[in-house]
């Protein structure tokens, strides 16, 4: 049975949004949602631990229908986390883990390309 997004919107905390913007500038992404998805993939690829314990206040940033218009992200998370009921939460926690890790790299190591980010 295919699980759907629990909420119709996706929220980002202010600090993460700031970091996301910096990452976008450093790595020259066109859109913030593309940057956000890259951060998710980085977290998945590097098996970053999701911080599910934190109580973070997020503010709505995208509508899920626009954010994952083709549903690929939903399929991915369903496939990779078949036991999870709320793949939207998985999405956000993975994104935040990726944002934090990448932001640290690009700002501390002055990285400007995705290749450099993925290499280190």
């Amino acid at each position, binding site marked *: *049975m*295919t699980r759907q997004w629990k909420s119709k919107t996706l929220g980002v905390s202010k600090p993460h949004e700031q970091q996301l913007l910096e990452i976008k500038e450093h790595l*020259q*992404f*066109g*859109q913030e949602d*593309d940057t956000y*998805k*890259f951060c*998710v*993939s*980085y977290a*998945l*690829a590097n098996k970053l631990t999701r911080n599910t314990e934190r109580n973070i206040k997020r503010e709505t940033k995208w509508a899920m229908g626009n954010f994952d218009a*083709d549903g*690929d992200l939903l*399929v*991915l998370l*369903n*496939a*990779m986390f*078949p036991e999870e009921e709320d793949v939207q939460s998985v999405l956000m926690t993975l994104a935040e883990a990726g944002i934090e890790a990448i932001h640290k790299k690009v700002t501390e190591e002055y990285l400007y*390309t*995705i*290749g450099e980010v*993925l290499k280190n």
Partner: protein
Amino acid sequence: MIVKSLHLHHFMPYYGDVTIEFPEAEGTNTTIFYGENTKGKTSILNAFRWVLYGEAESKGRALDYEDLLNKKALSEGESELHVELSFSDRDDHYVLRRLMSEKHQGGKGNLLMQKNGQPITHDEAEQTIERIAPKGTRRFFLFDGELLREYEELMEPTSNTAKKIKKAIEDVMGFPTLMKTLEVLGAVEKRFRKESQLERTSNVAVSDLKRDRDDLDASLEEKEGELERLSVDEKETRARLTELADAIDGSKDMKDAYDRLQALKRDRDFYKNKIDEQENHLREIKREVWKSVLRQDVAMRAKKALAGQETRRKLEVSRQKLTLEISSLQKSKQTEVCATCNQTIRDVSNLGARIDEKLAKVEQISGEIDLIPETDSLIDLNMRFANASRLQDFLSAEADVDHTLTMHNDCIDKIKRLQDEIGDFSGADVDAQIIKRVKLQASLEKLVESITQLETDISEIKSEKLRLSKKIDELSRSDGVSKESALLQTQEILDIFERAKDILREDIKVRVEEAAQHAFLEMTSRPDDYSGLKITDSYGLEMIAKDGTVVPQRSAGAEQVVALALIDGLNRVGRSPGPVIMDTPFGRLDQTHRANILAYMPKSARQFMVFVHSGELQRDSTVLDPIKPLIGKEYSINSNGPYVSYVEAAK
């Protein structure tokens, strides 16, 4: 000319050999031959004519071989005759011999001549005779008294004899040369008249050719002017090219730097465009980079999922097979007939156990199938991710952008350095010079091509002009004088010679008149009655009385004296001094005249030889007394029969 001897051999009445010698000294220069009629006096005169000119005559008739060969010799079988004349002229001694035989009939015999003992050619012999004793003068120094009357006929200018003598007189005075010249000039004039006519015809063609040549001249002048202009242009262009080349070479290093700068700017722009393209591309694939990052992981998961699906399918096939077997066993248990082979089963007790065993197995397989997760969505995801770039490709694209950016920045650095090096040097100026040089070079090539073409044209025009000039020359005169002009000049010359003929004729008349008058006054018996002679246009002489009137009637003697005076005058004017040989000159003269003539002739001529018969002059005549000291030789001419005459020395 001084005659030394005359030798005859079988000539006319002289049979055998007869030799006559003549006195040479001026004081004793007279030879008198005495002989009666028909003895052979005139034959000796003919011997002189024949040996000198190959001609002999009697009473106006030319004598041939049969007349000349002695009849007695002929009757004896002889066929050859000859006459030999020995004479001197100036310091040379000549022997002239003319012989004739049957083979010479109709001709003048064979002429042989020796000069100072050496033979000379026939032509030289004839030229020598013509120089010393011109044939035209023979009538005057080989004088036949029987022909004296002919001279008297000169007073009748219309008579044939008068015309003949007039011609002879003019021959002596050099008229033939003049007349020959006039004849030649007449022929030349005729030829030029004809050619002039042709020239007028060809002048039209020449005029056309000259017009064509003038056109060529104009064209040539135009092209040569153009060639000169182009040559100046070519020289100037080459000079400007050299200047430009120097200027361009002088700024070569700066120009090279300038060119490198331009190339770098082009490279910079190229890299800039490339960066834009690559970044656009990168931006596009960056939208999906999250898929690229996970693509390999998803692919591996999908592979595992596919394996699980295969396992599920196999398990389901096994479960379905077991279900069918269970169904078949249950039917066999109820009917005790084998469902497969339809044979009766004797013991069905073990069928229930077998059915339970298979049911347990089916339950186990179902449990295993349930444990295999649902994987359709993962496989579908893998197919979706397959459309995204592979991560490696993405990274390469990103590296490409980085590399291009580096190249771009490198260009910018180099541009800055070159800009500093060049300063405000304008490569555009050099480029303009280079473009100008290229254009000038092209212009020069066109100029050279035009000059070459012009030179070819000029050469062809000159060649054509030369051809026309040659044609014009051919149609005109090669010496540049037109036929018309030549005709006019020839006519002028002809006119001059015509006038010269009249002048010469008048001059001859004056000179002959003076000489004849002198002789006449010496020979006439009445010198006190006459003042002289006056020559007429036909060379006749009129006697002029003391009162200046013409004597209307002349006696026969007077006529003869006048004729002798004319002959003497002509003889003196017409040739160099030489002998005068007279045959019976005294026919109608009285004793006084005969004495006067005998006294005068030895003084007038270098040698005087006279043939007389007894009716004219006796050996003991007193007429001879005044000239006896002058008589060097006297001969008697006698004969033994009609064909054997001989000459005997009487003194």
